[in-house]
C-alpha cells in the first residue's frame, strides 16, 4: 500500500477517534498540535489502526513516535513484515 493511501486511511481513523471530521494531518503533525489527542485518544487511534490494517503494535513502539510521519512509516514497516 502506498504512503498516500495509508495517510488517507489513518486520517479517517484519527478523525473518527477524535470526533473531528475537519482534521487535516500531515507527516509533521504531532499529538501536541491537536488538543483532543490525549493518552486515551492515542489508545483509540492505536487500536483502530491495528484493526484497520491487521497489525499489532508493541508498547514501546507507541511511545517513541514523534509525529504522524513516524507513525506512517511504522505502519508501512509492519505491513511489509506481514507480507514477507
Amino acid at each position, binding site marked *: 500500500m502506498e504512503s498516500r493511501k495509508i495517510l488517507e486511511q489513518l486520517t479517517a481513523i484519527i478523525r*473518527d*477517534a*477524535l*470526533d473531528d471530521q475537519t482534521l487535516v494531518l500531515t507527516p509533521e503533525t*504531532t499529538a*501536541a498540535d491537536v488538543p*483532543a489527542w*490525549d*493518552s*486515551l*485518544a492515542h*489508545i*483509540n487511534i*492505536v*487500536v*483502530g489502526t*491495528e*484493526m484497520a490494517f491487521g497489525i499489532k503494535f*508493541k*508498547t*514501546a*513502539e*507507541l*511511545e*517513541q513516535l514523534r509525529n504522524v510521519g513516524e507513525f506512517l512509516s511504522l505502519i508501512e514497516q509492519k505491513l511489509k513484515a506481514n507480507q514477507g
Partner: protein
Amino acid sequence: MVFSSYPFLFLFLPIAFVGYCLAARFGATYAVGWLTLSSLGFYAVWNPVFVIFLLCSIAFNYTIGRALLARAHDDSRSSNWLLALGVVGNLLPLAYFKYLGALLSFAQHVSLISRDFDFKVILPLGISFFTFTQIGYLVDCQEGEGKEIDLVRYSAFVTFFPHLIAGPILHIREIGPQLLNSETFRIRWRNVAVGLSFFIIGLSKKVLLADSLAEVVKIGFAHPGDFRMCTSWLYALAYALQLYFDFSGYSDMAIGLAAMFGIRFPINFDSPYKSTSMIDYWQRFHATLTRYLTLLLYNPVALRVQRRRMAAGLGVSRRDQRTLSGFASLVVVPVFFTMTLAGIWHGAGFQFLLFGLMHAAYLTVNHAWRMFGPKLNKDGLNRWVAAGVTGSKVLLTFVAAVAAMVVFRASSVSDAMGMLAGMVGMHGFDAIPVPSTAMSVLQHLGPISTFLTRTHHVLAVPIDDSIPAPASLALRLFIVWALPNSQQIMAKFSPTLTAIRGAAPVWLTWQPTVRWALVFGVLLAASLMSFQQTKVFLYFQF
C-alpha cells in the same frame, strides 16, 4: 550531598568534571566509566553500604536484561516469565524498604497481629527512581531495545548522578544512543556554559524560592486544623509553591548538570500551573513519571480493554465511548488503576492513596467533560472573553491541584481534612494579613481603605514568621504565571531532549552575553549566600 551545598559545588562537581575531561581523552569507554565511578562516589557520601545494594541491583537487572534481549525476537512465553521475575526482583526490595514497616504497623493497628515489630529501616536514597528506571529498561529489553548497551554504559545510565536520586526518569533509548556516540564525550564549552546557566536557574528556584518557604509550611502543617479560611489558603499556597520550585528546581539542575557533561535529558516540568485542564497538568507536572506510568500501567490496561471491546464487536471511537459502559471501561477503570498506584508510589500512608484517588476523580471528570460537555467554539469569541475562559480554566485546575497537594503534604488523612476544612471556611473567616507598612499606605487611599477595613477583608495584622507573607506568595505566583519557564529561557541552545512548547520574549531568551552573565552571576551569588537554610529536596523521600 545535595546539589545546593558547598561540598557538591566546590568539591564534587569540579573533581567529577575535570576527571571527565581527562578520561574523555582516553576514549568514550573511559569517560563513561568515570561517570559511573564518580556517581557511585556521589551516592557513597550519603551511605556507603547502599552502594553495594545499588551495584547488586544493577548486576541483577543487567543480567535479566541480557537474557531478555536474547529472547527478544522469538515470541515464546519464557520471556514473559523472565520479565515477571525481573519486575518482582525489583519490587521486593522496594516493598521491603518502603512499605513493610507501614503494613506491619497498620496490621497491628487493626489488631490483625498482636506483636509490635517496631520495624524501622532507612530508605535507600532514590530507590523508587532507580527501581523504576530499571523496570523500564527490562520492558524495553523484552522488545529488543538497547542491544548495544554494555555493562559500563548500563551502569552509567542507571547511576549518572544528576538523575540518580530524584529523576527525571529516563529510558534507555534516549540515553543509550548518547552514551554510544563518541561525539558526546568531546568537551564543548558551549555545553558547559548552557548547562551551568540552566543549573543556576534551578539552584535559585530551589534556594531562593523554595527553601525560604520550608519553615513556614512546616509550622502550618504541624497544626493543620487550627486555621481559618484565609490563613489555611496561605499555607496551602505556600506548600504548592514550595513543592513546585523545589522539584522543578531540582529537575532544572539535573538537566543543567547533564548538559555540562554533554548529555541531554528530557524536560520534567513544563509550567504545570499554567495548565488549562487536569489532563494537561499531568503532561506538564513530573512529566517523566507521567510518561512512565502511561507507558507501563495505563497503556497496557487501556489497550487490553480496547482490544477486548473490539473483539466483542463494540466500537472504540469517540461516539462509542459516549455510552455509560464505554466510559466506565475505557476511561474510569484505566485511570483509577493508574492514579491509585501513582499515589501509593509516593508513600505508604493513606493520604497518598487519597491523593491518587483525587487525581483519578479529576481526570475522570475532565474526560467526561470533554466527551459529554458542551463544545465551545473559540473562533467566534471576543479576545477578552477568550482570555477570561482560559484564565478561569487555569485557575480551576490550579485550585484542584492545590487541594490534592494539601492531602499530599499532610501527615495523615485527618490532618488533610483539617486543612481542607479550614480552606472552605468551616473554621470561620479571617482577614488577609497585611504588614503594617502596607497598611499605612492603604490608609491614604481614602474610600478604598475605608471599604476594605469596614468589610474586614484586610486587617493591619503584623506579619510574623509563622504565617506565609501574602506578598512573597504573590511574587512567586507572578513568576509561575507570567514569566517563561527555564527551558523557554534557554530555548536557543535547546539543552533538552523534548521539544520546547511556547517561547520566551526575545529579551528573556538566554544568550552568551555579558548582560546574561551578570544576571546569572547575581543569582548564583544570592543562592550561595542563602545556603545556610538549604533543605533536602522534597522528592528525596520518594
